[in-house]
């Protein structure tokens, strides 16, 4: 098992390196001189030269990548063009908010998806199954940014039950566990939970259906095992794969919340990205993408390891 952990971790290293290379290159695929990503276009020439030297932009690309990676590894993600401040403190609080939102959406979507999917898989062909399939397809087909607007119209505009913008009543963006804060998270979390719910439903329907069709289940049934015992066997066999899907979905929630965060003005990484795009603040874009994708790489590794831990067959 330790060898497995070591091997998987080792395999993520080149991926992480390649992902950072991609993020590094983002500044260079942006139209214009990369110096425009650091300085405003109206900067005087001597300042441009000075900054170019300070950032190492006068050096060849591989050297630049080395310097950039060194800084990133030491916690220096650069400065925002728009505010001139260090990126990390802002990104840090945005990350926390996105994590809270993603976790809330996961807490809604995963159990519901598991429930619908398992029931549908166990009763293939029944009306429950058909309803679950429709629900799953609708869940993955709905443009969630539009769903967010529908939620705002119904629950904020027409019924006036829940707030439609921001993360807290005082607008500070600092999160706390009271009703004022909870009421702000309800709509974006439900909106964001629809896609993972659909995907988890779809996956679990397939897994549970497949397991129930296997010979050992027939044998267990033939030996007179009761429903409770059968469920235990199904859960044990479905868990590794279900866990993998949910783990990846958590990553997609973190990375995919940009649209929903924009709709609800949720002060997370998505809003940060959106503002960065609008202000052409490429360093902020780069840093946010880097941190989010590194999170995703780490999550992938964690899912791999959890699977190996749960299912000896996965320990290749």
């Amino acid at each position: 098992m330790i060898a497995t952990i070591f091997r998987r971790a080792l395999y993520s290293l080149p991926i992480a390196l390649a992902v950072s290379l991609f993020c590094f290159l983002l500044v260079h695929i942006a139209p214009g001189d990369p110096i425009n990503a650091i300085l405003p276009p109206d900067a005087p020439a001597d300042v441009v030269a000075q900054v170019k030297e300070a950032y190492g932009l006068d050096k060849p690309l591989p050297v630049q990548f080395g310097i950039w990676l060194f800084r990133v590894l030491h916690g220096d993600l650069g400065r925002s063009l728009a505010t001139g401040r260090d990126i990390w403190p802002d990104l840090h609080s945005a990350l926390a908010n996105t994590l809270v939102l993603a976790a809330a959406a996961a807490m809604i979507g995963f159990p519901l998806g598991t429930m619908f999917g398992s029931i549908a898989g166990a009763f293939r062909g029944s009306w429950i199954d058909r309803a679950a399939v429709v629900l799953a397809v609708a869940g993955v087909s709905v443009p969630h940014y539009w769903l967010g607007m529908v939620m705002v119209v119904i629950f904020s505009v027409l019924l006036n039950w829940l707030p439609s913008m921001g993360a807290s009543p005082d607008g500070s963006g600092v999160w706390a566990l009271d009703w004022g804060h909870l009421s702000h998270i309800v709509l974006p979390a439900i909106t964001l939970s629809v896609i993972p719910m659909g995907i988890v439903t779809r996956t679990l329907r397939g897994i549970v259906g497949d397991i129930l069709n296997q010979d050992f289940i027939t044998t267990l049934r033939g030996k007179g095992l009761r429903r409770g015992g059968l469920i235990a066997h199904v859960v044990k066999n479905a868990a590794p794969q279900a866990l993998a899907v949910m783990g990846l979905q958590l990553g997609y929630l973190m990375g995919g919340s940009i649209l929903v965060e924009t709709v609800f003005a949720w002060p997370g990484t998505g809003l940060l990205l959106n503002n960065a795009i609008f202000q052409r603040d490429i360093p902020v874009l780069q840093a946010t993408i880097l941190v989010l994708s590194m999170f995703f790489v780490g999550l992938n590794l964690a899912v791999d390891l959890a699977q190996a831990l749960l299912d000896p067959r996965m320990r290749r």
Partner: protein
Amino acid sequence: MSTTRPEGYWSGVFKRLKRDKLTLICSGILLLMLIVMIAAPLIAPHSPYQGSMIRRLKPIGFPGYPLGTDELGRDMIARLIYGGRLSWTLGISPVVIAFTIGGMLGIIAGYAGGWLGMLIMRVTDIFYAFPSVLLAVAISGALGAGIFNAVLALTLVFIPPIIRVAESVTTSVRVLDYVESARASGAGAFTIVRVHVLPNVLGPIFVYATNLISVSMILASGLSFLGLGTKPPEPEWGLMLNTLRTAIYNQPLIAMLPGVCIFITSICFNMVSDGLRSAMDVRN
């Protein structure tokens, strides 16, 4: 004189499709949308660009404007129809391009194997390390707004998954006996791929690609929604949703319309793709 021929694969597929009512209905809806969009100049009652300050945000059912007007007084019907042209183009073209490029690379990786296959698959792995939305936003965010950049970004998002599918089906076909015997009889790699591999792998890759159209539509409109795809005043469903956000207090129904179009299109493409998959009996 009548000869009995064994039923071909495709006639079986069509027979199964004909029995699948849901798939038929969804294909019908998509076809209808396509016809309306193609015939847009004939059908749209007004120009999608012509606004008017006095006709802003008229409700649904307003005389002359059955679906009302948007925040600049432009006819919603015209904008939805013309918007569909752009949304469909933005949503479908990345999948078509990715199907071509990704399919090719995947088949090469699967058939050739070795260092070339390894190289292609490892580069693919890198792109898998990004959630798809994030990758699309990263690329088009760095490149800047515009239709071309949005299509480019989405194409790059969809190439890796198509490569993976193409590679895995090609690998499974490559080891089959008839490919082996073709190789033994002296056929070149190109001939084997063209005659023996392609007909057997294109179906599954195609079905997988159709499955991506739904996601692509949502992402493409999403990019426009973020201001990364189309630019105003061009009508596009995602962009319309964004600009109509200001109207959710006055005319919530009108503000929802473009999203309804995206939803219907995306759910229909999903259904048709699922129907195709089971009709062609492609294992997921």
